[in-house]
């Protein structure tokens, strides 16, 4: 396929994913609002917010790294998204899926955080490093069960190519990893809670503790980029989970439905619980989900 067309397709895909992510965030705000017994903002509010942040002027400077942070973060989000198929069998939404892209995707999940850490650390505000420390520690801990789950399904499907994994799950609900390897899915879904950073794992932003942590000094377009990335990264994660565990999607509505349902899982838990203390959160991931992850690997590998 022509590389240029591929690029155009990827661009369209990213745009759709970002918009979808933003709307998704908007919808989730709306749902939270209903839990709070209020009406809630319009679903397109995140888009307006991003336009607004881009319209702001940046008059502070904390050095180049500070400004590169959001860029790295965005790169991480895009990287995560770009290397996996969004809609199975679609040309436009196939992205740069290739053999071994699962590893690449997992690397990019990390990459964004690290980049952000470099940038935010330059901000000089003491809450930034605190937030970063929390974020990175928590990420390390939830990555463990997640990686175990990924290893488990890599063993199960004998591949590291997401497209192949999706393909293997086609042909009926019962082919989904959810039913073929439930332990791995449980481990992964619990780590998704941490990944989505909803309560009780919202350590990084934690407004009452370290007011919004790493991006505390971010503003203007840089904040806008971070916001965009949040949307893109959210949809990327959800698509990844959909692909790995819930049989992927063959068209856009299915994709939206499935990702939305996956997201609702974190929302469902998130609305009901307060935030963990950092060490509680770390311990949490290193206990049951990790055990389940190990179990799933053992089950898949030896049974």
């Amino acid at each position: 396929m022509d590389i240029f067309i591929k690029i155009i397709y990827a661009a369209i895909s990213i745009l759709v994913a970002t918009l979808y992510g933003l709307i998704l965030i908007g919808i989730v705000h709306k749902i939270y609002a209903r839990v709070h017994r209020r009406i809630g903002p319009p679903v397109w509010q995140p888009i307006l917010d991003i336009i607004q942040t881009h319209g702001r002027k940046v008059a502070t400077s904390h050095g180049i790294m500070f400004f590169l942070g959001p860029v790295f973060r965005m790169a991480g989000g895009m990287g995560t998204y770009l290397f996996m198929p969004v809609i199975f069998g679609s040309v436009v939404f196939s992205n740069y899926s290739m053999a071994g892209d699962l590893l690449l995707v997992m690397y990019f999940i990390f990459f964004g955080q690290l980049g952000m850490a470099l940038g935010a650390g330059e901000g000089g505000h003491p809450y930034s490093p605190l937030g970063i420390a929390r974020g990175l520690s928590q990420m390390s801990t939830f990555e463990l069960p997640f990686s175990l789950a990924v290893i488990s399904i890599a063993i199960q499907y004998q591949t590291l190519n997401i497209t192949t994994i999706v393909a293997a799950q086609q042909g009926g609900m019962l082919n989904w990893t959810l039913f073929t390897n439930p332990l791995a899915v449980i481990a992964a879904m619990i780590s998704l809670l941490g990944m989505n950073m909803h309560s009780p794992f919202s350590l990084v932003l934690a407004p009452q503790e370290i007011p919004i942590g790493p991006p505390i000094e971010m503003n203007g377009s840089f904040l806008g980029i971070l916001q965009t990335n949040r949307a893109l990264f959210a949809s990327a994660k959800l698509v990844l989970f959909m692909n790995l565990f819930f049989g992927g999607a063959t068209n856009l509505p299915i994709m939206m439905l499935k990702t939305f349902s996956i997201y609702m899982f974190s929302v469902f838990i998130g609305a009901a619980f307060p935030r963990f203390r950092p060490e509680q959160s770390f311990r949490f991931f290193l206990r049951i989900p990790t055990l389940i992850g190990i179990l799933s690997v053992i089950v898949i590998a030896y049974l």
Partner: protein
Amino acid sequence: MKEKDIKIIEKEMKLANEGLPEMERDLFADDRPSRIEPLNKYLEQFLNWARARSLWILAYGTGCGAIELRPLMTARFDAFRYGIAGRPTPRQANVFIIGGYASLKTIKRIVRSYEQMQGPKYVIALGSCTINGGMYYDSYNTINRIDYYIPVDIYVTGCMPRPESLIAGFNGLKKKIQAGQCDGMNKYADNFDWYKANQKQIIKDWNMPDYNW
């Protein structure tokens, strides 16, 4: 403010950090802000449209006005539906609500927070105390009129102004933003010396507590 006043003050008052070495100048937060000029008429109109619909309040309850911010932001009045949200850091907020009286110690933080906010930024002054001292007009520790220290876009009178008044204030602010008339930030930049002089007149110890940002 009258231009005559500004000229007199410019002549008489010197910025407190004048003549200090470069390193120490920062402590006084005397960096002159710059004006914000619109890039393009139509783009600016579009941005103003978006700005009016996405107002981020600085979560700093400076006075008793903060008490009505909570009902405003919670289920009964739900300001989120108007695109009003709270931000915990001044860097990201664009609306500063002065919740009534500002004590001597607070006005210092108000000025500092206001300066940290990135433009375009707007100020809503709540309650009588911000207009003419309110019931603390004779207090030794509260200022009388906030517009001497930072520019204000909308005044909401009342003590306390109810959440509904506050929503009306936001509506007024939105209209003003959309019409492109909210130039408080430019006013601050243009009359920086006047504002600084006023601030310095009451804040004797300009040096902030050793905050390491």
